[in-house]
C-alpha cells in the first residue's frame, strides 16, 4: 500500500481522532478513488461519468489546472494537520493554499495523477477531501469559536462530527439534485450565516438541560437568494438524524433536476411553501422507524469525549497582565480589540489570525505561514486551530497573558493584521483568476478595495463593516449577505460589477438591495469609496454602515454614485 506513515497529532488539540476503523475506511476510500482515476486515464470512464466521482472527492477542473478542495471538518484543525497542508502545498502545488468560505482549503495547481498521493498524505493526519464538492451533503460548517465562546449554550462540534460521519458516503443521499450544505451553531449569536444554508441547525437546551435542535430549512444564495425559514422548534436529540433523513428524502424525491438554477432545496421549499414542505417531512417521519435512526446517548457521549476541554491553567492575573501590555503598546491594543473574542474560561481568549493583509489575497496562506501558525498554535493554544467562514484562522484557546507573545510571533510571520470584522476583512471568491465558472475577477477588486477602505478607516474609523465579492452569480463570496456586496458580471464581454447594500448574514440576516447600474473593473473601488464617504457624512456617532443604510435608505447613496457631476 502506498499509504503515508501516520503522523502524531498534539495531545490536547480537540480534533476528532480517527480510530482503526476510521483509518481503514479512509484507506479504502482512497483506494476506490485511485482506481477511479486509473479507469478514467484508461478510458473506462468517460468525463461525464468521472466528473461526479471526482467531485465527490473534492476535485474540480478549473481554468488552469485541477483544484483539490480539502475538507477541514467544521473548520476544526490541529497543528500537525496544518503543517501537513503546508507540506502538500510545497510538494504538489505552488507553495500556498486558499482557505474558503466553507471553512475548507483549496489547492489550485493540482495534477490529476498526483491526487491519490495527496489523499494519502491527508489520511496521514486524519484528513480527506470527501464530499467537498458534488451533489451530496457537503462539509458541515460551524462557529469558529465553538467550544470556546463565552456565549455558547451547547457545543456544536459534537453534532457537527455526528453529521460528518452520518453523511459520509450516505447510501441514499449521494446523488441529490444539487449540493446540500448544513451549518450548525450552539450559541444564540449567529456567527455562521445560518440562514444562507440548505439546513441551519441551532443546538439548544430545554428547561431540564436536555439537548434539542431548532431547524431552519431552504436558505441559499446563488441566482435566487433566499433566507432559510423555521421548520422545527425543538427536535429531541434522539430524533436528530431521523429528522435530517426525512428532510433529505423529501428533497431527493422532489427537488428539481432539470434546471441547475432551480435544483437547490430553497426552490422546493419556496414552491411548496414552508407548511407544504413540513407536511411532507412529517408524513415521512410518521412512517420511518425510529430505532435504526435513533441517535443514542452513548453515541453522543463517545463523540463528545473527543471535544473535552483542554487542560486550562488557572486564570491567575492573566487579565491584568494583558491590560498592562495593551497600555504599553497601542498597536497590540488595537489587535486585541479587533482580533480577540471573549472565552468561556477565565483568563483565556480566542485569537483571530487575519488572512486579509491590506492589498493581499483573501484567504491565501503560504506553506511558510501555515508552518508558522502551526508552531504558534502549539506554543500558545494546545495545537488547536479553526478556519472561519470569513477566510481567517483562529486560535481558540490562548491565555490572556500570552496574547502579547503570540502577537509578536504573528508580526514576525506577517500575520498580525488587526482587521477582523472590519472593512478590509473582505470575503472574496477566487473569481475569474482561477474559477472556471466565474464571469469576472474578484481578488484584484478585493485588493483594490482593501486599500481604499484601509485608508478611510485610518482617518474615520468605520467600525464593523462586511464587504464581500463574488465573481459570478453562484455567490461563493456571499455578496448577497454583505453590508456592501459586489457581484462580478459579464457585460458585453467586459467585466462589470453590481453593488448591493444592506445585506447581512447573522441574527439580522437580510439580502442586500441592488443600488443601480453596474460599474466597470476600473470604477468599482472608487464607487465603494463614495458609498463609505456618504456613510461617514450621514452616520450618527459610532453607527455602523449597515445601520446608517437601513436608517436612511438608498437615496443618498444612489445620489452619490450616479448623480451627474
Amino acid at each position, binding site marked *: 500500500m502506498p499509504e503515508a506513515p501516520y503522523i502524531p497529532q498534539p495531545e490536547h488539540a480537540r480534533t476528532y481522532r480517527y480510530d482503526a476503523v476510521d483509518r481503514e475506511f479512509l484507506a479504502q476510500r482512497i483506494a476506490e478513488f485511485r*482506481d477511479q482515476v486509473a479507469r478514467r486515464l484508461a478510458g473506462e470512464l468517460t468525463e461525464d461519468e468521472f466528473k461526479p466521482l471526482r467531485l465527490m472527492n473534492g476535485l474540480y477542473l478549473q481554468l488552469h489546472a485541477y483544484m483539490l478542495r480539502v475538507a477541514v471538518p467544521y473548520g476544526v484543525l490541529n497543528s500537525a494537520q496544518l503543517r501537513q497542508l503546508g507540506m502538500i502545498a510545497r510538494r504538489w502545488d505552488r507553495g500556498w493554499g486558499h482557505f474558503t468560505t466553507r471553512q475548507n482549503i483549496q489547492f489550485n495547481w493540482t495534477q490529476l495523477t498526483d491526487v491519490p498521493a495527496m489523499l494519502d498524505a491527508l489520511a496521514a493526519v486524519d484528513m480527506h477531501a470527501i464530499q467537498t464538492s458534488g451533489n451530496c451533503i457537503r462539509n458541515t460548517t460551524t462557529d469558529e469559536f465553538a467550544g470556546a465562546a463565552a456565549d455558547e449554550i451547547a457545543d456544536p462540534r459534537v453534532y457537527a462530527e455526528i453529521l460528518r460521519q452520518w453523511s459520509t*458516503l450516505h447510501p441514499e443521499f449521494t446523488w441529490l439534485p444539487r449540493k446540500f450544505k448544513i451549518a450548525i451553531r450552539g450559541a444564540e449569536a449567529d456567527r455562521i450565516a445560518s440562514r444562507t444554508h440548505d439546513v441551519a441547525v441551532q443546538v439548544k437546551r430545554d428547561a431540564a438541560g436536555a439537548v434539542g435542535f431548532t431547524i431552519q430549512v431552504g436558505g441559499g444564495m446563488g441566482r435566487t437568494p433566499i433566507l432559510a425559514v423555521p421548520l422545527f422548534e425543538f427536535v429531541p436529540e434522539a430524533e436528530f438524524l431521523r429528522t435530517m433523513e426525512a428532510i433529505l428524502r423529501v428533497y431527493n424525491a422532489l427537488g428539481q433536476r432539470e434546471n441547475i438554477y432551480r435544483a437547490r432545496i430553497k426552490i422546493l421549499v419556496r414552491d411548496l411553501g414552508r407548511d407544504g414542505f413540513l407536511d411532507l417531512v412529517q408524513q415521512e417521519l410518521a412512517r420511518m422507524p425510529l430505532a435504526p435512526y435513533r441517535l443514542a446517548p452513548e*453515541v453522543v457521549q463517545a463523540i463528545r469525549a473527543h471535544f473535552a476541554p483542554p487542560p486550562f491553567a488557572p486564570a491567575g492575573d492573566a487579565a491584568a497582565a494583558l491590560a498592562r501590555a495593551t497600555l504599553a503598546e497601542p498597536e497590540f491594543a488595537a489587535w486585541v480589540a479587533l482580533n480577540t473574542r471573549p472565552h468561556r474560561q477565565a483568563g483565556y481568549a480566542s485569537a483571530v489570525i487575519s488572512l486579509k493583509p491590506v492589498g493581499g489575497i483573501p484567504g491565501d496562506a503560504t506553506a511558510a505561514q501555515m508552518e508558522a501558525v502551526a508552531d504558534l498554535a502549539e506554543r500558545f493554544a494546545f495545537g488547536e486551530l479553526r478556519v472561519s467562514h470569513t477566510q481567517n484562522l483562529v486560535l481558540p484557546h490562548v491565555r490572556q497573558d500570552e496574547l502579547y507573545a503570540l502577537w509578536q510571533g504573528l508580526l514576525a510571520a506577517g500575520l498580525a493584521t488587526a482587521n477582523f470584522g472590519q472593512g478590509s476583512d473582505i470575503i472574496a471568491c477566487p473569481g475569474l483568476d482561477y474559477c472556471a465558472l466565474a464571469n469576472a475577477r474578484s481578488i484584484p477588486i478585493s485588493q483594490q478595495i482593501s486599500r481604499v477602505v484601509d485608508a478611510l478607516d485610518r482617518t474615520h474609523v468605520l467600525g464593523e463593516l462586511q464587504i464581500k465579492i463574488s465573481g459570478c452569480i453562484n455567490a461563493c463570496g456571499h455578496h448577497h449577505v454583505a453590508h456592501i456586496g459586489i457581484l462580478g458580471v459579464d457585460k458585453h464581454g467586459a467585466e462589470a460589477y453590481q453593488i448591493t447594500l444592506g445585506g447581512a448574514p447573522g441574527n439580522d440576516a437580510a439580502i442586500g438591495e441592488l443600488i443601480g447600474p453596474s460599474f466597470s473593473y476600473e470604477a468599482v473601488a472608487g464607487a465603494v469609496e463614495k458609498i463609505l464617504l456618504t456613510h461617514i457624512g450621514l452616520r450618527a456617532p459610532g453607527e455602523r454602515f449597515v445601520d446608517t443604510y437601513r436608517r436612511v435608505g438608498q437615496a443618498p447613496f444612489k445620489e452619490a454614485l450616479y448623480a451627474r457631476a
Partner: protein
Amino acid sequence: MPVLEKGALRADDWQVVDDEAALPDAPVLISLARLLRDAALLAGRNAPLGVAIGNDVNPDVLAPLLPRLALVQVVLPKSRDGRAFSQARKLREYLGYTGEIRVAGHVIPDHYAMLLRCGASTVVVAEGTDAAVWEASRKVVSIAYQHGLAAETPISLLRRKVA
C-alpha cells in the same frame, strides 16, 4: 440485457410487455399505468408480475399492490439522478416490500454498493459487462457510517461492516 445479482450475471427472465399486448403465462414486466389500470384483471394471474416505475413515482402508489408483485424496477435515467435510491429505500423500509428490486438505466459500478444498501437486489447491465468490476467496486469500501438495508454487522456505535 443481462442482470447482475449477488456478483454473477444471469439472463433476464422477465419479458417486457406493452400496455396493450396480451400477457403471456410467464414473468412479465409491465408499466405502472397498466398495473393501475388492470389491477382487478391481474388479481387472478398466477405467473410472476413485475412493474417498472419512473423516477418521479412515489412508491406509495404501489402499497396496496405490493403483495402481488415479484419485481419492482426503478431507473436511473442519468447516472447522477439518484431518486431511485430513495424509492428503493421506501419500498423496503416501511412499505414492507420483500420481492426483487431491480435497477435499470445509466447505472455504473460506483453506484452498486449504495444501491444494495438502499435495498436494491439486482442491476440491469450492458452486454459484455465484467461482473468482477462490479464486485470489486462493491467491496472496495467495507465500512459504513450509517444504517442501511444490506447485510450489515455493527462494529461500533456508528459504524458497520457492509461487504
